[in-house]
């Protein structure tokens, strides 16, 4: 479960997020929607305790990001958007195992976990190769496996399908489905309404740092009387007057 209460974040004079509140229930796949620069990454960084909220409070799995950041860190796995960060001179296996050891996992447990993840993401062919020359999709798979190595309860995925081809994006969506079956709480950010619609029932829509809507997609459709997703998105954004 993730609870965001009246959160603001400023960088110097610039306000990146203002008075944002929403709630992700345990076991839910929740969408965080917004255009470039809306504040999605900033929000996820605060949930991952990398940045501190300027105002307001965030609770992850029942722990405050301010008061008990280490408890939060133990329970989350985060995949940062954009170019995924991997150690290019290490193999895929070494990359994943390194993060496993950061969570205090034993060698054997890490080995077993990597086998499972490798099957899940079909990485067997390149598991023991250095990641430097990997394609975008291969790197993304390694990065997601790394995010999941310690089997976190709460999974934060910042634009995870950006740059993936159709096949890779499909594999990825299947994995999300399986994680949901395992009862994981998943927050998924994207600037693509169609993408969100395939996976999430409920969303938060942010525009230029302000929350425009939080709740069920169905409700949003009913509220604006529009079926077409892109049109719906544009209507909400234009209606914000920002």
């Amino acid at each position, binding site marked *: 479960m993730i609870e965001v209460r009246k959160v603001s974040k400023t960088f110097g004079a610039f306000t990146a997020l203002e008075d944002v509140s929403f709630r992700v229930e345990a076991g839910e796949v929740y969408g965080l929607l917004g255009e470039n620069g809306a504040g999605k990454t900033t929000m996820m960084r605060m949930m991952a305790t990398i940045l501190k909220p300027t105002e307001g409070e965030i609770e992850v799995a029942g722990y405050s990001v301010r008061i008990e950041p*280490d408890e939060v860190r133990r329970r989350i796995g985060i995949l940062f958007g954009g170019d995924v960060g991997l150690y290019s001179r290490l193999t895929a296996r070494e990359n994943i195992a390194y993060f496993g050891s950061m969570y205090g996992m034993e060698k054997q447990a890490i080995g077993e976990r990597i086998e499972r993840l490798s099957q899940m993401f079909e990485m067997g062919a390149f598991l023991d190769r250095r990641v430097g020359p990997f394609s975008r999709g291969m790197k993304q798979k390694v990065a997601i496996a790394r995010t999941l190595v310690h089997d976190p309860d709460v999974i934060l995925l910042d634009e995870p399908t950006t740059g993936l081809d159709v096949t890779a994006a499909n594999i990825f969506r299947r994995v999300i489905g399986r994680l949901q079956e395992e009862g994981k709480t998943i927050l998924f950010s994207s600037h693509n309404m169609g993408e969100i619609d395939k996976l999430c029932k409920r969303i938060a829509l942010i525009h230029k740092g302000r929350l425009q809507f939080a709740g069920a997609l169905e409700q949003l459709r009913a509220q604006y009387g529009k079926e077409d997703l892109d049109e719906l998105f544009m209507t909400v954004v234009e209606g914000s007057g920002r």
Partner: protein
Amino acid sequence: MRNTIIWAVFQKEMRDLFRDHKTWLGTFLIPLVLVPFVFFLMGSSYSSQEQEARAHVPIAVYGSSDLLKQLEAIPGVSFHQPSDPNQALQAGQLRAIVRIPDRFDERLEAGGTAQLHVEYDSTNQKSVYARDVIEERVMAYSKQIAAERLQAAGLSETAIEPIEAVYEQVASEEKRSGGMLAGIIPLMLVVSLASGGIAVANDLIAGERERGTLEALMSAPIPANQLLTAKLLTVMIMSCTSATASLVSLTLILHFGPIASQGFALSLFTPVTLLVLILTLLLLAAFFAGLELMLSMKAKSVKEGQTYMSAVIFLAMIPSYMLMPIHPVDIPQHYYMIPVFNGVSLAKEVFYGKIDPMHGVIGLGTSLLYVVLIIAWTARLFRREGVVVKP
């Protein structure tokens, strides 16, 4: 748990580094190859210049005298009569011009003083050498005539030489070889300690931040200072490797190279001086590592980091150069309290073979203090929000 994280990070950094051939070349091979190379060039050009100066001494002599016999005896000498002797001297074809005035021998025989003119080029080391050997011969000839005159007057040579001074130098063999080494080695060591870590330090924070791995790492439940400790150790290892490489090549050079050494040997060290040297170098390595990691953190990008890093090399060079010509007894007391200066000063004392215990205590104590300060400061920066994310 505590140590396993440090160990895991350290292990990963070293593995990553070992696979990065460029960095290894920089820290290990370059000092190992470049130091001897530079020395060899310097040394061989120096000794070949000197050999050339001795082997050929072309001079021009005008006028005649019995003195000529003396000059002919100079090894390697040859006599020339160029059309424009002054121009030939300027051009280096002649090393010296000797002008013997008319009635030179007559004047001497009459018991008077005769003048001799020697022209040379003080900017040319070979010409200076020629002047020296000519002077030697002329002095000997002059002395010989003086002895004859004294004898004729019924006096012995000792009559005009009441004092005979004998100069002996007291520095031991170790001290003398130390004197030379105390100039060069601290410079080499300190500069390679500083330069050995810069590529790694820049990569370990600014590089990881730019690639996004630092952010992922910091979202794991690991204390920032353990991550920092592991990175500090990695940088120190690279610094020390680079310093060791320079030291090894220097030692080889001094044994086999063209610069004659008066036996640089381990006998130079006592267990105490060796211990002080090792402690001094480790503390310097830790100081530079801390400083470099801090700059890596402050830098907004890897590129900016590289600029900062070159400043560290300057910081290392300034005290080394300033202290190079100074004898340890002339090093001002307060130098033993200034960062980097204290380490260089102590290293100098070690190579002179004698450490003032007070200097040892102050130098090592303040070094330790600066290491603690820089690491504490760096750790505090690391915990500050925003250091780990790309701006």
